């Protein structure tokens, strides 16, 4: 389990970021997942993203549900608070946490069992409310902790380790998130760090509901021939629509590309997403086209990856509720309690 502490000795050559932290400062406990598990690569990508974004580690709040993926928050950003909630209900806890303190960075980590089955309802609603968060589903199409049952994202006709063919249609979390109102939606592959890290950074900078579906092969139960979530299958069928460079406003743009090969999206916080086109012309700001392209990919057996949909000027739950700029958890009696003279008036009005 997760009680093994990592040695905290830092190599002097480890480079500090602008916040004064080394990459090691964003690590957590040693993973207890299986060797080669895709989830560990995603944790590493989160660590890399947080380090590169110069985030203060304690300004992150990590929330998860139940399952292999939901254990992952212990493996990154150890100096932040984490909450391993109940199965499928992380979205509501994250919503409440976000309401209490709008200043923290919310990272929700879940799996396909947690989010696509028991938690499908809460998944839909957290997207439609526009909770300012990064919601990552570590998607392996299988129940690992209970040893190999199909999950709701397993493709119809895919074969389990025991040789059973899945008779049920799969749930596509990306399409669902777009339809439910998420304002930043991407898909990636745990084995493609170069695509994944910038996507996580961009999602964290996004001031609204950001969702990343990360295909993350289960080496123990879903990495065999006949699976559509194996390393081999995903590598062969990965249809990357774009790769993004995440550029914070204060950074100097150094790399240049041939005209016509990139598309630039500026997010509300000023950060710039430069999309490097890979082949086809794809516009991720077109919601209808995004759903169409993702569905076409599903039909063709492709794993369509990249930044699939973004609304660069989203609204979030706090904006919708018109809450004060300071975190609600910093307000105290003088700001919250109307006092005795107001109560006297209330009493008088009730006679």
């Amino acid at each position, binding site marked *: *389990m*997760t*009680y093994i502490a990592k040695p905290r000795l830092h190599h002097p050559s480890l480079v500090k970021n602008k916040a004064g932290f080394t990459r090691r400062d964003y690590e957590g406990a040693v993973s207890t997942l299986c060797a080669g598990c895709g989830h560990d690569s995603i944790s590493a990508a989160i660590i890399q993203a947080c380090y590169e974004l110069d985030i203060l*580690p*304690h*300004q992150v*709040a990590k*929330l998860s549900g139940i399952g292999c993926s939901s254990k992952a*928050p*212990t493996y990154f950003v*150890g*100096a*932040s*608070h*984490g*909450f*391993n*909630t*109940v199965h499928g*209900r992380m*979205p*509501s*806890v994250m*919503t*409440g*946490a*976000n*309401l*209490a*303190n709008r200043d*923290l960075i919310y990272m929700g980590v879940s799996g396909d069992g947690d989010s696509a089955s028991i938690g499908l*309802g*809460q998944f*839909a*609603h957290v997207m439609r*409310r526009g909770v300012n968060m990064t919601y990552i589903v570590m998607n392996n199409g299988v129940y690992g902790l209970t040893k190999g049952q199909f999950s709701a994202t397993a493709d119809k006709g895919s074969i389990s380790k025991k040789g059973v063919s899945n008779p049920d249609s799969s749930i596509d979390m990306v399409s669902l998130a777009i339809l439910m109102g998420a304002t930043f939606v991407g898909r990636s592959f745990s084995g493609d760090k170069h695509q994944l890290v910038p996507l996580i950074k961009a999602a964290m900078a996004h001031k609204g509901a950001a969702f990343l579906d990360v295909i993350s092969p289960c080496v123990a139960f879903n990495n065999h021939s006949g699976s559509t979530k194996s390393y081999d299958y995903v590598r062969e069928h990965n249809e990357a629509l774009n790769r993004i460079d995440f550029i914070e406003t204060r950074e100097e743009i150094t790399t240049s590309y041939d005209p016509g090969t990139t598309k630039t999206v500026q997010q509300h916080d000023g950060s710039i997403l430069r999309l490097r086109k890979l082949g086809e012309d794809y516009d991720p700001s077109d919601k209808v086209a995004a759903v169409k392209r993702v569905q076409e990919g599903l039909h063709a057996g492709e794993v369509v990856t990249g930044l699939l949909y973004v609304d660069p000027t989203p609204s979030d*739950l*706090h904006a919708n*509720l*018109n*809450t*004060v*700029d300071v975190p*609600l*958890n910093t*307000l*105290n*009696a003088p*700001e*919250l*309690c*109307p*006092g*005795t003279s*107001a*109560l006297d008036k*209330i*009493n008088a009005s*009730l*006679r």
Partner: protein
Amino acid sequence: MPQAIAAVNDFVVKFANVNGSGSASANELFARSILRMGVPVSPRNIFPSNIQGLPTWYEVRVTEKGYLGRRGGVDMMVAMNPQTWAEDVKEITPGGYLFYDSTKPMPSSMFREDINVIGVPLTAITNATYTDARQRQLFKNIIYVGALSVLLDIDEKQIQRLFSEQFKGKEKLIDSNVKAMNLGRDWVKQHVDPDLVKLKVQHADNVGDRIFVEGNSAAALGAVYGGATVCAWYPITPSSSLAEAFQSHCKKFRHDKETGKAKYAIVQAEDELASIGMVIGAAWNGARSFTATSGPGISLMTEFIGLAYFAEVPAVLVNVQRGGPSTGMPTRTQQSDLLGCAYASNGDTKHVLLFPEDPRECFEFTADALDLADRLQTPVFVMTDLDIGMNHRLCKPFAWDENRVLDRGKVMTAADLDAGKTFGRYLDVDGDGIPFRTYPGTHPTKGSYFTRGTTKDEFARYSEEGPVYVRNMERLQKKWETAKKIAPQPLRYSSPKPTRFGVIYFGSTSPAMDEALDHLEAEGHHVNALRVRSFPFAQSVEDFIHEHDRVFVVEQNRDAQLRTMLLSEHTLDARKIVPVLHYDGTPITARFIATDIATKLGQFKVVSFDKAAS
């Protein structure tokens, strides 16, 4: 001529109406006008789970003595609903009165010989005056209030004053309502013998500074005063008006004067699972939060309640109880969620419950619950019910200590951590079983921890070691002992004469119990009473039971749930704890309590101890 019940300031009028016909505000006007004459009233809505068209009743008890429980029996029926005519007529006490719309002639078989009938052609009067259909419907209600005001001697000036307050600034509406009232008054004056109805209201001075308010609105105000900033809820009868009242109180008191921005967040969640999840998430992150729900909602929330207990996250749940089990009786009242809340969730769990008796305590206890939840770091339930929540109840005015601060309990700050204080999230540093917590984002390098529903050691590290688990569970038990001391304490009412008999009661039973104790005393039955106001039970509850040979426990449920809790929390002789149970969905009455206790007391006097209890 039938007999005629004669009473001054002590009778019951019941209105039988059709749901959605606008009768509610007219009936409330009737009740308030009597209140303004200094005579206490206790009104109750009896309504179906329906929006429009089904029968609904409004029962007003006029009670100079201030007995605010439901009395039982009907002295005058205002029968405005043809659909329920037969049962409404049947319900009138012999010698009572039937007030009806006599526009259409009715066969004599529709009436009773032993009651007095007052027919007023309400529809005819209305149709002769108004052409608009909606006006006809609404003003017909005001016309009957006017007619009743003459029959019962209700001061018309008080009604006029109520119109002026209600429609302040809309003079036209005031005039048209006064006109409608006078249509009813004039007709009765011209056509009805003034001595026919012998139920009369006379000016008195028994209301004092008391306020007239619904428990749900009061609880919502308590949440505002108690500093709740996050409310997550899902609509369910009879609690919906609580969250809506929180919204309207917040609109008034919680917007920044300069920016107009909200110092609160209210989310109507997708279901009760999400609403309690949001409450827990917000409280984990240091905001005061609460939800309002009813029994079926609690059933759904049970998993999260266990998490909050074991991970030690504050949460406040206001349970406006209704009739169970399952969907049960959505619009009727019961106290039947005690066990379901006290021991909600799997494993060894116990939760703090508060039992308000009226709107005033709904206000007080909801504010207190927010303090208690923070101090104890655990879910706290405010166990109100439909009877308190959805009816206007006369009660002491709300009170607040200007110097009161929000007691956030044991929270370690960045300064504490920098000063080198040891932080163990589940470490009991001073023997009260309550550990310190940190809010997320407190300190760059210290004080972070992982919150989980699995077992852990004092420093929040996952552990399935037996001794570690047992230590944690025993600390939670110690916290339970602390809760006994800081939750609202029971209140004792002693009989003027020494007695071997005691009675324990709680919550909305209170007004009926007060009255029943007077009845019993008048009949020579001396009983000491203890009103339990929280669970876990204070030591004084056990002491009270030990002091008496027999203790009646009065509850509004079938299974004697409070009695079960008393027996499970203390070592007691079960035979001496005698249940007194009312659970048909109507509020308990003094008549029922007094009769049941008197009967049982009679039995004890003639039967030996062992036989009586077997």
